[in-house]
């Protein structure tokens, strides 16, 4: 049937969804109440308009600046640099970190044509320089990119790029397996990494 086929083909474009699972979703939707489908459609439709990027740190938010950036209780002297907005959610779930964030929006990868200009590196520099003249200057930048080749390249590049600023640069300590993903690091490992971060 064309309607089912079309739904399946669009669903399988989502990560982790194969044809089998997509078909099961399609059949479940056919069986469910109409109101369920309508709510689901509405939620999907409004997702992109209600969630956007925080203008300060670049993570997902419904308010601007985001909850973390506007929370007066956070330590504004520490900034944790991550690859993706979802990394902020992962680290927040560990309840181990009380500083601010900065989302790069990717990693340096010359092979894929991703150079420093395609990442939020200049905004990070601007943040550090602007904060320098306030009562709470940024003293530490924690680099939390994954320990992959590209994550390391990015960390090394940032270290050099921030050389002239008066900040300490640290890297999340080991514990996350090499080649591993922040997203899959369990809370305990992540907590240990934060406590044991090392100067880069």
């Amino acid at each position: 049937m064309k309607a089912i086929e079309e739904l399946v083909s669009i669903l399988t474009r989502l990560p982790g969804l194969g044809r089998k699972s997509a078909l099961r979703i399609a059949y479940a939707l056919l069986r469910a109440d109409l109101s369920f489908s309508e709510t689901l459609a509405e939620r999907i439709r409004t997702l992109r308009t209600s969630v956007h990027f925080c203008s300060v740190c670049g993570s997902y938010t419904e308010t601007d600046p985001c909850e973390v950036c506007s929370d007066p209780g956070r330590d504004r002297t520490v900034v944790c640099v991550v690859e993706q907005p979802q990394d902020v959610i992962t680290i927040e779930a560990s309840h181990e970190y009380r500083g601010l964030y900065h989302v790069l929006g990717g990693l340096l990868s010359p092979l894929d044509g991703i150079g420093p200009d395609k990442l939020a590196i200049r905004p990070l520099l601007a943040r550090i320089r602007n904060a320098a003249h306030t009562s709470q200057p940024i003293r530490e930048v924690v680099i939390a990119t994954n320990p992959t080749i590209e994550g390391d390249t990015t960390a090394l590049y940032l270290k050099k790029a921030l050389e002239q600023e008066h900040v300490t640069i640290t890297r999340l300590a080991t514990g996350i397996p090499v080649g591993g993903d922040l997203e899959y690091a369990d809370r305990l490992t992540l907590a240990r990494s934060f406590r044991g971060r090392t100067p880069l």
Partner: protein
Amino acid sequence: MPFEQVHIASFRNIAECDIPLGASRVFLLGENGQGKTNFLEALYVLCYASSFRTHADRDLLMHGSDAFLLRADWKDSFDAPFMDRMSLLYRAGEKKEVRLGDKILTDRKELVAHNPAVVFCHEDFGFAAGEPEERRFFFDQCAGMLWNEYIDILRSYKRVLKHRNAALKSGEEELLASLDIQFTRFGMDLMQTRARLAVLFHEHFPQFYDQVARLGTRVNIDYRPSWSLDSTFDQILAYLAEHRARDLELKTSLSGPHRDRWVFVHEERNFAAYASTGQLRLASLVLRIVQAYLFAQAEEKRTGKRRYPLLLLDDVLLELDGSKRKRFFELLPDPSESVQAVFTFLPEEPWRDYADRSTMVLRVEHGRFTREESI
């Protein structure tokens, strides 16, 4: 570890077979094109989950078939009761499923040390007579077999090299400083491991080679790294910075372990430049023997027990004359050491000269195997 039993279904020209293999030496006799090499290939795929003849798994499918299955039981040694099962199922268009016991494997690397194999095949000639790249391939394979972590370092190095070359191509100079740090770090690790390997080859290669070749003078294999072996991390970084303009100009990394060379040396000259084809063929065979010995030696150090890789010899004896053949056979590890070796022969070859009562002889015809009962 020796194979005890092998099951093959829809693999190349082998429709289906169940073969008991519990012998130290297995001879496959048959005319060309009957399936001898296909059988060796199946054993190799059971060891490494990939072939030595092709990168495309679909090439391994029997004509008209859309799936193949390989399964093997092996033992720690011929008299050990312990058995391990490995299976590999491939369906066209899907990822192959490799199981070790009940566990599904996700990285081929896990297999490299588990039940390694060494193939002696015609293409190995390139290790002696071919481009430096072919020799690097051989020694990288050896190092990965001896030190599992080498595989990760090599993968990382190659990835950084690709990034570095891409940055050189697009002229992104500001990235090179960070890339050079990684390039040097992984490169030095590679270089130091290769140097360790060179020491091991020095200990065995000249003696083994001369045992068969009887040149009377030593042929050795030298490791000649692109960067100087005794330079420090900072010295290499400085070297890269100094030569960056040239790298940028030619848009590629002109130095580094991807340019390392391995050279056969005889009386202080490059042996490959004047050696005969026969001498070079023998050199490539001896490289393989040394590889197998070094693995057994490393296993002994690690576990207290000598353990050889499976030896697969595809028609290579054909290339040696009678007396060298005999001496080459003497170089192979003794059957009493729980080593399993599978040889292919043409029916008219004097295979009986190398067989004894324990040798298992299989005749191969149209992908079918029949056991020769009395030899």
